[in-house]
């Protein structure tokens, strides 16, 4: 196979395949800018959430369910917690430069384990934070009937909201669980390769 190796190693190079240091610096700048924009988007989302809730509370938009302001605030706090978690997982625990220098199997295992851990603990950091506010709000809705709405219609609305929330959060939880299980299978395959 010597000839094939020679052919392979003597492939003609194109001019644009030689990259200089200034291009690398430009890429580093663009990388930093992307991170800055992503953080900015997260902050904008947080501020919009807080502003909308503050506006709803200050202008009395929650009437006749004024007491919903408290669970609404809890849901805002949950949003902020999830945003912080996303930022922390993406930024603070971002890939250290030396990780790239690990052997390929170790590197891949590290990446898969990181993703698997994030997915398998998602019920704790992505789903659970919303539950107190959501349950509190549903409890209030189920117990406070506005005079202007017929009781049967109010009950039907509460039931619809509870079922929708159950469906949504169960689907989200299942998707996380499924994703983690698939990553476990890939990790098992990697372990098999390692002990070969």
């Amino acid at each position: 196979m010597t000839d094939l190796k020679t052919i392979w190693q003597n492939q003609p190079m194109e001019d644009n395949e030689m990259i200089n240091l200034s291009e690398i610096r430009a890429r580093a700048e663009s990388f930093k800018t992307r991170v800055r924009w992503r953080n900015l988007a997260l902050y904008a989302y947080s501020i919009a959430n807080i502003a909308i809730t503050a506006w709803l509370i200050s202008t009395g938009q929650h009437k006749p369910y004024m007491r919903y302001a408290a669970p609404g605030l809890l849901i805002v706090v949950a949003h902020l917690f999830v945003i912080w978690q996303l930022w922390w997982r993406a930024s603070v625990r971002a890939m250290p430069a030396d990780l790239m220098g690990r052997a390929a199997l170790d590197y891949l295992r590290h990446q898969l384990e990181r993703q698997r851990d994030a997915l398998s603990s998602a019920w704790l950091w992505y789903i659970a934070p919303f539950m107190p506010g959501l349950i509190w709000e549903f409890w209030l809705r189920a117990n406070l009937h506005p005079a202007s709405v017929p009781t049967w219609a109010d009950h039907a609305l509460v039931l619809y909201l509870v079922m929708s929330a159950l469906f949504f959060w169960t689907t989200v939880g299942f998707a996380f669980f499924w994703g983690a299980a698939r990553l476990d299978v890939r990790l098992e395959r990697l372990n098999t390769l390692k002990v070969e």
Partner: protein
Amino acid sequence: MGTVSQDELYMHATAEFGPALARLARAYEADPHSRLDLLQDIHFALWRSFSSYAGQCSLRTWVYRVAHNVGISGRVRRRRRGLTSLEELAEIPASDSPEDAVHTAHALATLHGLIRRLKSPDDQVMLLYLEDMDAAAIGEITGLSARAVATRIHRIKQLLSRHFRQGEAS
């Protein structure tokens, strides 16, 4: 390690291994734009990685590890399906006109095609084998045991023999 050292290491590494990095990017990406993008990603990761390089392994091993890790990460993101193992690829018939395969351009196209269809770490082993690395060096870069590398190299040789006429290309 300061910025100057990082730059110097990067310059030294690209001077020595630049062509090998370009070959790796070509092997992973057929589309010229994506290829250039991958190559720039590899160079950027390499430059960044030198901030934490303290002689943990040889410069060559480090460069290849970083390059392969970037290549594989990109590959995982872009294409999760349609990849096969060395054993499965051996079942696929070789070119209809193996005489053509001895021609350099055709041989390169065939090699690129085979690598792009292989799963990791088989593709990495084949790439490093073509770069003329021995089993120990391949093991150090991929993390595979020497026995696993030797088995794969044996299968790669068989695979290449089937796709290129033994008497003319090997």
